[in-house]
């Protein structure tokens, strides 16, 4: 029998009250950077709040919140702009951190004529090639081997870029997770796997997703290190991510990071978690809220004030309001755009179908508002 002993210690930097723990590695971040992190965390919170309200008002088709999981997004903080990110659908913070604009974010949600993906994908399926943020796909797990491919390509081409990919703990059950981890191990590809263990995959609890003791322990089967980190501790996230990125860039291969966090609200705007989970379950997590903890930390070190936060919130709210106002004036993408970019050049049959459609009477979308 292969006896396995786990050091199941969760890597942490801040305690639940936002105080620095003793004797742990702390990421070296400038005051500026700390401020930016707080800024982006607030942006996620404000954006989620505003968008969910829009959705409830029937003005937005669909939305997915990340409330309570924002700290985990900052695994991207130590990346270089030339590094690549293969996200799932719940890492808004990663997008804003890398420079994705509120305008692009909102135009994508509305799928309007300025949507960077031209109204072709449902809300929260962003793409930003200029930021090396790869197109989000709904089928979960598909991005994981793709990240390995990009990382391996960088290595083959002699570049020192790193690829990072995000996915939920439920997604670790897919075949794609396995083949990706396995390829990465064999090729020692410079890739960092970030598994956001938020406890739930829609209605299925993490302990029904696998019998493994931890998700990090799955790294054993691929010959790579598995690190378990407090995913509600943004400094710990950045610390372990820095180590994993350094390993990758240094040629030492991939790392699996399990970020322990919690999905405080529903899976998406279509979900009602009260049907399947104890409505009090989130309570325990409230006091471990990543924003609170980081705020307290900043307060301790004198980098936070009520006015500061109010100012940032106000700025974010304003940016969102501006983007919404601008989006309100925009129409849908032109009908022709539906037929474009299926291929680089439009083949005859698609052109024929486009021409036919353009000859038909226009009907109004039942969803237009």
């Amino acid at each position, binding site marked *: 029998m292969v006896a396995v002993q786990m050091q199941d210690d969760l890597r942490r930097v801040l305690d639940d009250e936002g105080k620095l723990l003793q004797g742990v590695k702390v990421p070296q971040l400038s005051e500026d950077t700390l401020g930016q992190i707080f800024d982006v965390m607030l942006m996620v919170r404000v954006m989620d709040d505003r968008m969910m309200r829009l959705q409830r008002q029937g003005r937005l*088709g*669909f939305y997915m919140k990340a409330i309570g999981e924002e700290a985990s997004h900052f695994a991207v903080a130590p990346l270089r702009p030339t590094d690549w990110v293969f996200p799932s659908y719940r890492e808004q913070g990663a997008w804003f951190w890398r420079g994705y604009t509120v305008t692009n974010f909102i135009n994508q949600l509305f*799928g*309007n004529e300025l*949507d960077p993906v031209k*109204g*072709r*994908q*449902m809300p929260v*399926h962003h793409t930003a090639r200029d930021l090396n943020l790869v197109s989000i*796909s*709904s*089928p*979960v797990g598909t991005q994981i081997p793709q990240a390995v491919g990009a990382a391996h390509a960088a290595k083959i081409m002699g570049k020192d870029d790193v690829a990072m990919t995000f996915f939920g703990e*439920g*997604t670790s*059950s*897919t*075949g*794609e997770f396995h083949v990706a981890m396995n390829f990465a191990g064999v090729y020692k590809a410079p890739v960092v796997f970030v598994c956001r263990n938020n406890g739930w*995959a*829609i*209605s*299925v609890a993490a302990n*029904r*997703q*696998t019998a493994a003791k931890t998700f990090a322990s799955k790294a054993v089967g691929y010959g790579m290190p598995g690190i378990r980190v407090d995913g509600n501790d943004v400094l710990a996230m950045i610390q372990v991510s820095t180590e994993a990125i350094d390993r990758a860039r240094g040629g030492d291969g991939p790392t699996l990071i399990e970020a322990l966090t919690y999905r405080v609200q529903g899976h998406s705007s*279509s979900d009602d978690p009260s*049907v*399947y989970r104890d409505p009090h379950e989130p309570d325990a997590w409230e006091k471990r809220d990543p924003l609170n903890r980081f705020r307290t930390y900043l307060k301790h070190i004198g980098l936070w004030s009520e006015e500061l936060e109010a100012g940032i919130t106000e700025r974010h709210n304003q940016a969102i309001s501006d983007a919404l106002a601008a989006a309100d004036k925009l129409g*849908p*993408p032109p*009908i022709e*755009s*539906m*037929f474009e970019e*299926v291929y680089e050049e439009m083949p005859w*049959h*698609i052109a024929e*179908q*486009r021409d036919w*459609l353009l000859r*038909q*009477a226009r*009907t*109004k*979308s*039942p*969803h237009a508002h």
Partner: protein
Amino acid sequence: MPTMNIIEAVRDALRIEMRRDQRVVVLGEDVGKFGGVFRATSGLYDEFGADRVIDTPLAEAGIIGTAIGMALYGMRPVPEIQFGDFIFPAFDQIVNELAKFRYRSGGQYPCPVVIRTPVGGGIRGGHYHSQSPEALFIHTPGLKVVAPSNPYDAKGLLLACMRQNDPVLFMEPKRIYRASRGEVPEGEYTLEIGKAAVVREGTHCTLLAYSGMVSIAEEAAKKGEAEGVSIEVVDLRTLMPYDIDTILASVKKTGRCVVVHEAPRTCGFGAELIAAIQERAMDHLEAPILRVTGFDTPFPYTLEHEYLPNADRVLGTVRQTLEW
């Protein structure tokens, strides 16, 4: 008779069969306590327990792979694939395994698995919550493919599927899951697999439709009637094996035919219907058989109402065959 929508009809069929036959189990992502993201299995967990209403880990290949093993062992699994778009990770298990077990084992191992999955667009789900992949499975020898368009058929056909011994892909039209309501008998009844229904008679042109497109075809027929065009609407109901007799009888009567489906046109099921009809009834055809289908593009988000066939386009295409 009670009125039900499609979701309720599906649930009713599952409940009836699970009560009658201990071997029937449902499995899939979120089908347990939650009752499925469309609530098709709602209440079954409470009645039948976790052993027969099984929440699975997130892996379609695992859902179908284990369902196959269960069926081989003697059970009658009814796996749910949450959206038809997520069936592809299980594609190998379905087309290379499930569909082939009886044949490749020399008849020793039948594999009666009924895969339920919602298909089609119209719910603003974008490409990955809207696809209609029926052609891929119709092209796969060994599978039956059933695609009801209303609650009555959904219940009767699902019961029939669970009582026969071949693997079935049971495609549910998610767009009208709740919108399509109708009278549905209480208790047991089955509809014959492989039989189409002439849901509206007409003399000028035959419309062949199935799943979410039947109501569009009926709407076109109604509009046509107002304008003096008499359209016969055939709801195919089963796509494999499809009901060639009913189709040919109708086309021979009207001499014209238009096929309607949501899936992309090229190599869609419409192509097969056209090929089969012209092989057998060429001398009855007064015009080419035309298609109103989804376009050969990925299913879009914002412009989905432009993508989807609608009654005007169908009627316009019928007219085209009349004017040919």
